[in-house]
């Protein structure tokens, strides 16, 4: 190859940048086109060659999706459902993990296995009965129906137990000598120290709840309680000739997650890799 070694190094670098850029474009392309198309008129979207940059953004698609498309309501429902589930999971996981990490009691190991076994039960096996249960409770098409089955988490208990186990023995002893009972220790020492894991669980729970599809589909029937994911399906059907409105709906549905992830990237990574990397 011609050129000095320094030049060769530069060529290698440029090639790597090129490859990265091409791949990045491929990955981001669908999302990018969604944003672009949400700001175009339907006629522009169908036009060939396609428009890759909206020179005259039509924000009306967003108001359409928001109002006529009921996206505002769907967003609210998703928010409420997700918040209930996230808070619920955090609370139950903290309580359970605390018991497993700091307390001694008979059947501890068995009970922990019970918690872990819930990870093995696929959702589909439970839907028939759960639907019936929710119906019987009169919770069909309601926030309770959406959220209550998911208020506990085996994964969360596992994750937080790991984190709590890292609290040094010395700290427990010192707190005990200082007169801290369990509640105080839990809220003032253990949870603050395990904040990364708690945050990771929070993000993870939020993500899972927000993206739920099958259960909200089964348990809601109208826009009063429909979540944003089902709402998207609905919107697509009703805006079949106004693709820009559908895309605006997509962006509205995705935006909260994007913001959440930008803010909590680190926590999410930690939560995802707990147990994966260490084996």
């Amino acid at each position, binding site marked *: 190859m011609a050129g000095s070694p320094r030049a060769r190094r530069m060529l290698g670098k440029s090639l790597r940048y090129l490859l990265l850029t091409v791949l990045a474009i491929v*990955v*981001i392309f669908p999302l990018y086109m969604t944003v672009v198309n949400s700001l175009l008129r339907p006629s522009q979207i169908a036009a060939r060659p396609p428009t890759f940059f909206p020179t005259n953004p039509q924000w009306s698609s967003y108001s359409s999706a928001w109002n006529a498309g009921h996206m505002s309501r769907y967003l609210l429902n998703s928010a409420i459902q997700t918040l209930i589930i996230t808070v619920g999971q955090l609370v139950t996981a903290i309580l359970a993990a605390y*018991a497993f990490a700091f307390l001694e009691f008979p059947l501890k190991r068995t009970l922990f296995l019970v918690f872990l076994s819930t990870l093995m039960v696929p959702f589909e096996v439970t839907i028939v*009965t759960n639907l019936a249960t929710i119906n019987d409770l009169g919770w069909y098409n309601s926030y309770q129906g959406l959220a209550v089955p998911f208020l506990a988490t085996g994964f969360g208990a596992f994750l937080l137990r790991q984190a709590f186990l890292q609290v040094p023995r010395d700290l427990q002893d010192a707190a005990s000598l200082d007169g801290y*009972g369990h509640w105080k220790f839990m809220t003032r020492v253990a949870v603050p120290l395990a904040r990364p894991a708690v945050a990771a669980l929070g993000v993870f729970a939020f993500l899972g709840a927000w993206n739920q599809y099958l259960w909200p589909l089964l348990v809601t029937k109208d826009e009063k309680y429909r979540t944003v994911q089902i709402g998207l399906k609905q919107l*697509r059907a009703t805006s079949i000739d106004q693709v820009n409105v559908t*895309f605006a709906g997509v962006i509205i*549905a995705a935006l909260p997650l994007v913001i959440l992830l930008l803010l909590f990237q680190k926590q999410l990574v930690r939560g995802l890799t707990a147990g994966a990397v260490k084996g």
Partner: protein
Amino acid sequence: MTYSGDSGTLGALADLGEADQVEGEIPRRRGRRFGRRRMREMGFAYLLLIPSLFIFGVFVFYPFFRNFYLGFYKTPPFPGLPTRYVGFDQYRDVLSSQDFIDSLKTTVGFALLTVPAGIALGLGLAVLAHQQLKGIGIYRTIFSSTIATSVAVASVIFGTLFNPVVGLLPWLGINPQPPILENPDLALIGVAIITIWQTLGLTFILMSSGLQSIPEEMDEAARVDGAGPWRRFWRVTLPLLSPTIFFAVVVGSIFAFQTFGQIDILTQGGPLKRTNVLTYFVYTTLRQDNNDGKAAVLAVALFSITFVLTLIQMRVLERRVHYGR
């Protein structure tokens, strides 16, 4: 030293010799098995576990076991009529039906399409983004961006992208007839592509974390030892990454078997039932056919297959995983 109100002098005397606070103390190693403190600790522990256990009991374990039981009852074709106990007959009938076998094949095929390719892509991107280049952070953010997309979001986006009229694929020259999602031969592949894209962010982050946990000195030692980039990847990086890959395969398979949203939004099991994965089959049996009994059997089948698959993976694959330090 304080003593809780209800323990009284007796309680205080009983615990003499232990110089700690009596009420709700943090566990000490010593102490008898069933003294007051032990009991209190036990009670408190169970109290903490009750919320989770209650939810699990009602919404996980009860349905799980009841599901097997439900499979024993054949749902009548007309509502209003009682269900009939048929024992294992329903299991036998449903599981040997062509519908089920086809659906099973579709589900397995789908998993085979998405899991290996998804992991390979995620790994490839992670390796590429692991270099020390300026601005690499932007690329990493872009590669993980699909994690913000839900199954519904991805389905709607690609549904339109694949659309023969407004989609971009035809413009790029890719225009199969009939269009991808309506094409019996291509529909499953189309859904697979969507699924791979949607899970790419997750896989990327997982693989990146795995890569970061490999000490850099390992790679440097290999460089000094004379290994070129390929050899380093195959002999050093990959083996050390095997726990992460193993995790991705197991979890990925489980998720692949639980695919639902994309099918519901885009193909509804078609065309010609070519995308009728088990989860969708359960759903239509339940909602459209109103056949609870059959749905229960299908769900049991789904669970069993996932469970067995996971077991097999644990047995076969985990042996080749190097949990090195």
